[in-house]
């Protein structure tokens, strides 16, 4: 009973603290939207149709905030001693992690909806209602591995280094997974690298909703993402144990 309340409270306050830093969340929401408008709509030189570009840039737009939210917040909290404070408080640490995931989901939901509306109005994207909902679900649930990457980075990096390293991981991974230039236009070696990137599997699942995936079984992608999630959970746990000693 008490536990449940704690989770809810922590989640609520995390969201509130996010809401109170518009300097963070406003650019963080506007960045993927601007990127999509520029490279998905106005300067769309590549082979993507309106639908295809929306899905690609939606994936791109969801991964970033998931990683950043965790990485920068956790690194910063560590640096300022918040994390230590929370650990000695009665609140279980999992509440902290879960709360951050909840607020990153709310974030992601806002971004996804803004992207959908932008795509619908300015790029003429038309999908059946079930496709819109399925896409939303896939996009949201799939942020989990990336949130964990962010968490791991946040636990390992200083608060100064975190944003730079996150970008170093985020942007090449997104590019090599075919989120900017569609994967079929990248050289063949890139295709092989992509299989090892969670962003690729995430994007393929999203594309499967509108029928523009590369044709591999969706279970392959689900398994890959589940595998990454488990691996990352282990790594996070291990790193956290090391931090505690």
């Amino acid at each position, binding site marked *: 009973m008490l536990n449940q309340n704690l989770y*809810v409270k922590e989640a*609520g306050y995390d969201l509130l603290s996010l809401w109170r830093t518009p300097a963070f969340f406003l650019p963080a929401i506007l960045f993927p939207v601007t990127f999509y408008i520029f490279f998905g709509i106005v300067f*769309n030189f*590549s*082979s*993507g*149709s*309106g639908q295809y570009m929306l899905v690609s840039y939606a994936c791109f737009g969801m991964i970033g905030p998931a990683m950043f939210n965790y990485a920068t917040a956790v690194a910063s909290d560590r640096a300022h001693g918040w994390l230590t404070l929370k650990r000695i408080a009665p609140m279980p640490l999992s509440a902290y992690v879960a709360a951050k995931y909840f607020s990153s989901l709310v974030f992601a*939901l806002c971004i996804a*909806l803004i992207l*959908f*509306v932008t795509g*619908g109005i300015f790029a*003429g*994207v*038309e*999908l*059946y*209602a079930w496709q*819109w*909902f399925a896409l*939303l679900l896939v996009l949201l649930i799939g942020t989990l591995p990336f949130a964990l990457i962010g968490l791991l980075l946040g636990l390992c990096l200083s608060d100064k280094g975190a944003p730079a390293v996150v970008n170093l991981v985020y942007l090449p991974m997104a590019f090599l997974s075919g989120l900017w230039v569609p994967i*079929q*236009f*990248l*050289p*063949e070696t890139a295709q092989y690298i992509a299989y090892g990137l969670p962003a690729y599997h995430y994007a393929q699942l999203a594309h499967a909703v509108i*029928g*523009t995936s*590369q*044709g591999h079984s969706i279970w392959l992608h689900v398994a890959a993402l589940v595998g990454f999630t488990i691996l990352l959970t282990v790594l996070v746990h291990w790193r956290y144990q090391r931090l505690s000693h």
Partner: protein
Amino acid sequence: MKKILLLLAAVVAVLAIVLNLPTPKTADVANDNSFVIGPVNIFDGEKWREEKFVVVHEGWITKLSMQRPDLDLPYRETQGQVLMPGLIDAHVHVWGEALQQSLNFGVTTVIDMFGDPNFLQQHKAARAETRQAKHADIFGAGYLVTAPNGHGTQYGIPVPTLSEPSAAPEAVAKRLDSGSDFIKIVYTHAGAAYQHAPSISYTELEATIKAAHQAQHLAVVHVADHASAMDAVKAGADGLVHGFFDRPANDELVQLMRSNGTFIIPTMALYEGMLRGELNDDLLTAENPELPASAKASLNKSFGNTRFPAHFYNNLLLTTERLYQAGVPILAGSDAPNPTTAHGWSLLVELDMLQRAGLPLESVLHAATAAPAKAFALPHQGRIADGMKADLLLLDASATTNLRALFHPQAVWKNGFEL
């Protein structure tokens, strides 16, 4: 309590947004792609018919008749306009919104001569269906066959290249596996007048064509000069996908193509843009169509500082005329969206060029309908006949003598649904 209300409000907001996002408009299938149309002047892809009425049932043409059939179907009453099959652009390169743009100009089927195999695979199923569609059907070559560093490798697309004749059967098999409808090969005669990028050898060309034929598929060849065209025809090509202008086709080539049944897609619209660059402006001024931004962009691109002798343009027209007179099948293809061309629009420009080369109106219409359908064995496209898809154009009655009527179709049907 407040939290629960907040949560509820959030859920309602999300639902409200998502449920109001745009969805594709679906028509009432049962009635909308079944109808009777007439009286019309029917060009069936080969010739003008005596029948005046066409019956379409769920997107398929089922009957042509002299009198209005007594059927319980919606009746589209016309006043003797021309009804012809939707146009086929026999040489394009498709990506992005190309299929939609093509359809807006009345091009209901395109034949892609080098494109993404995945894109082709995704659109294959639609070819045999009559679901409502806002885009043209596509048949395609997937990746072309070319030499290392040859033409086609300069676009950053990972095209596998051919380095020896014995590798030809495997190259063909790989393409057919990835969904190619036919094999497209790039070839330049060694020591040709116009030095293109590195090319496969004549032996490799022969081997690839042979492998394609053994696998029961067509082999078509990109050439850019007379000598290469001659080689390609001798090597057994089923068709040449470009014309050439370094010299007019000589008798030997013309006769060889005629006896081999080799077809040609002269792509004169493209060459006009390269050699003179006037026709687009003339037609745009005369016909004043509505062009989307992407069409304007590709039309405005140029080939850069190329200076060709003036008589090359005449060679181009002369070759097409000679081949036509000899009975070689002429197919209309635009090579869109290369510089100075645009999807859909440039096929109409190509038809204008075919007329300038001396083809009579019916042969021009044939070149964009039944001729490519026959050359590429398209099962349901290019003709108005029982069993064909209802991809149709309704044109002003003057279309019996005036090709320009094609620039202003009164109605376009794709899969029996009116656009």
